[in-house]
């Protein structure tokens, strides 16, 4: 069995990659701007809802309940979906899922597929697997298209191209779509995407997507989206394939009344996203006449064992925790080395890989608790982070963050000249964070110290510097 979460097992440790990302000031500006916009919108539409806390609590209990009886609900889903004309497949890991999907495509002799945004397929590395088999996957979500055309990596769960601004996207479209005239209004960019993809929507015979919710009672799949690319992919092709993590199942159709309120307000700050599609198996003379669901484990069943860790699987992938996270807002998504970034990525990525890889991610947090507060299904992310840190230590796998910081401290303290240097670096490095002689908000993992307390700034002159100067003056 080979559990894989994108290329996370090969990614550099968080501390290393975050340093690299912190140096990219354009990316940081883009991430800061985009997360500011979405936070403002989200706060506004959440404040409109007097029963928001009651909805969160119901969603939490619903997810907790479903996970506790996951075997029963999966069996229900399989039965109902099959009765409605769908075909259910089971994949224990990424390779198996990719193999099943490839097999379906090849059985139709097709060489192209159109895709709805699905992070689960990024998790299994489906695109490279299809390409290796000579099949071209076309991403049709605007952000995924931007990532694919730019040979880039997704940096956000909901808005994978969040690290790119309008100007960069326009340049990319001109180059890759070979456009001579392209305006610089956002509408010009969406219009270019519309024209680029329309022909593919009408022609390509197989569509692939994920599932936001899989309804056990009816065997239905629900896809939540904005652009209409989802509707195109799940309506026009002859065959549609849903790649769905086993944790996406919900008990009943009526439970959508909870999730369809929480998800759009949390994800994009909208009262409702433009389109939701819910369908059940195959409908005569409407949409694909062949429908497959690939239910993927890939390390999920393992996370069920511990009650606290299990919360991780409640996630509905809204991205709200990313937008409020002081660490994510500094480093962007790429530093996490995983298709799942931000606070939720920091707990889901190492757990899917049985804590064998990405062990530094549980340290990529200041434990400030903003993620817990924003989470629409009330995942206590800080609680899970602490538990995972304990596991890392128990495994005897003292993570890079600790190793590096302890090493740095011991290096600094063991030599006078190095201590001098470290103090000088600290004096300069602290300057953006000092207000009235106090440090109120430190970046990155240092932020944990300053979220609930201020720190006295490091004096402009260290004792050694003062002593040396005094000696010079007296000389």
């Amino acid at each position, binding site marked *: 069995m080979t559990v894989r979460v994108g290329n996370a097992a090969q990614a550099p440790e968080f501390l290393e990659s975050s340093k690299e990302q912190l140096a990219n000031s354009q990316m940081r500006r883009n991430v800061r701007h985009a997360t500011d916009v979405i936070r403002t919108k989200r706060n506004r539409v959440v404040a409109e809802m007097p029963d928001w806390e009651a909805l969160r609590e*119901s969603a939490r209990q619903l997810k907790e309940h479903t996970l506790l009886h996951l075997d029963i609900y*999966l069996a229900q889903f399989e039965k109902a979906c099959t009765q*409605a004309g769908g075909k259910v497949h*089971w994949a224990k890991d990424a390779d198996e899922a990719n193999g099943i999907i490839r097999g379906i495509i090849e059985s139709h002799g097709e060489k192209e597929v159109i895709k709805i945004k699905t992070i689960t397929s990024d998790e299994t590395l489906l695109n490279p697997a299809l390409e290796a088999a000579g099949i071209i996957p076309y991403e049709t979500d605007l952000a995924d298209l931007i990532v694919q055309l730019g040979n880039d990596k997704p940096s956000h769960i909901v808005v994978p191209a969040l690290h790119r601004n309008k100007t960069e996207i326009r340049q990319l479209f001109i180059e890759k779509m070979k456009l001579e005239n392209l305006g610089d209004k*956002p509408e010009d960019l969406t219009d270019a995407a519309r024209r680029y993809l329309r022909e593919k929507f009408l022609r390509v015979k197989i569509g692939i997507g994920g599932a936001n919710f899989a309804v056990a009672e009816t065997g239905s799949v629900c896809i939540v989206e904005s652009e209409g690319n989802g509707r195109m992919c799940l309506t*026009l092709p002859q065959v549609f394939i849903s790649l769905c993590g086993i944790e996406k199942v919900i008990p009943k159709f009526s439970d959508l009344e909870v999730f369809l309120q929480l998800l759009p307000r949390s994800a*994009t700050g909208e009262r409702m996203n433009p389109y*939701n599609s*819910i369908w059940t198996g195959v409908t005569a003379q409407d949409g694909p006449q062949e429908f497959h669901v690939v239910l993927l484990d890939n390390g999920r069943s393992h996370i069920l064992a511990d009650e606290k860790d299990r919360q991780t699987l409640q996630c509905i992938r809204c991205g709200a925790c990313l937008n409020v996270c002081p660490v994510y807002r500094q480093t962007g998504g790429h530093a996490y080395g995983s298709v799942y970034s931000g606070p939720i990525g920091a707990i889901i990525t190492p757990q899917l890989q049985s804590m064998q890889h990405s062990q530094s991610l549980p340290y990529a947090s200041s434990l400030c608790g903003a993620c817990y507060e924003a989470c629409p299904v009330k995942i206590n992310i800080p609680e899970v982070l602490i538990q995972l840190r304990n596991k890392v230590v128990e495994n005897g796998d003292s993570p890079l963050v600790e190793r590096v910081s302890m090493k740095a401290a011991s290096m600094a303290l063991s030599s006078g000249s190095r201590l001098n240097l470290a103090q000088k670096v600290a004096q300069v490095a602290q300057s953006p964070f000092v207000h009235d002689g106090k440090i109120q908000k430190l970046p990155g993992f240092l932020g944990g110290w300053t979220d609930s307390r201020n720190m006295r700034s490091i004096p402009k002159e260290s004792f050694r510097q003062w002593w040396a100067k005094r000696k010079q003056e007296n000389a």
Partner: protein
Amino acid sequence: MVGEAKAGKRLSASRENIFSAVRRNLGNRNPNFAADYERISRDYEVAGKLSPEERLHLLEERLQDYGTGVYRCSPEQVTATISQVLAVRGVQSVLLPKDFSGSFLPPKAIEMIYDDNLSYAEIDRCSGVLTTCTVAIALTGTIILRHSADEGRRALTLIPDYHLCIVQAEQVVETVPEAIRRMEEFKTAPITTISGPSATSDIEMTRIKGVHGPRTLDVILVVS
């Protein structure tokens, strides 16, 4: 064939593998999951609080918020309103579901194309589509289609660039739970919820109107 059988065996082995891993990791549980489900707390609001007129007004406001054109008229005025709206939008020909039964058929001045098994390419050449809906949600500015005879198959309200939807006042509810409960009897039909025209938030997190679905959505709200 032998290869296929082998592959089939391996895959059903994966099914067993997943189920046994799930059961092993979850351990002992209350076998009465249905009773567990009933205990889930549901303290959120279900029933709306607005008067019928306030509810309709909220729907209009929320539809407009997302850039949907809204026209209110009486049952007698529907036909005239359709031709007025289509003229404003410059739509010359409208697509109709094959078995469209609306008594308010569009005026003769406008070309009507019935969806008689049209190919997607043929639908793509039509400039607009006219349908009804099943439910509308005031709070979120949403219309819900279950793709009945008057709402057409899903491709119909997806490919053309313009969608005109007739909403009856009695189809309008205030909250999402009210809408989902009304949809309960149609829960295995294909369902599409539409909140404003196609849009994206992918560029700098700002909602931009118009990507792949209809870029213009108009609603005629029929109130007796």
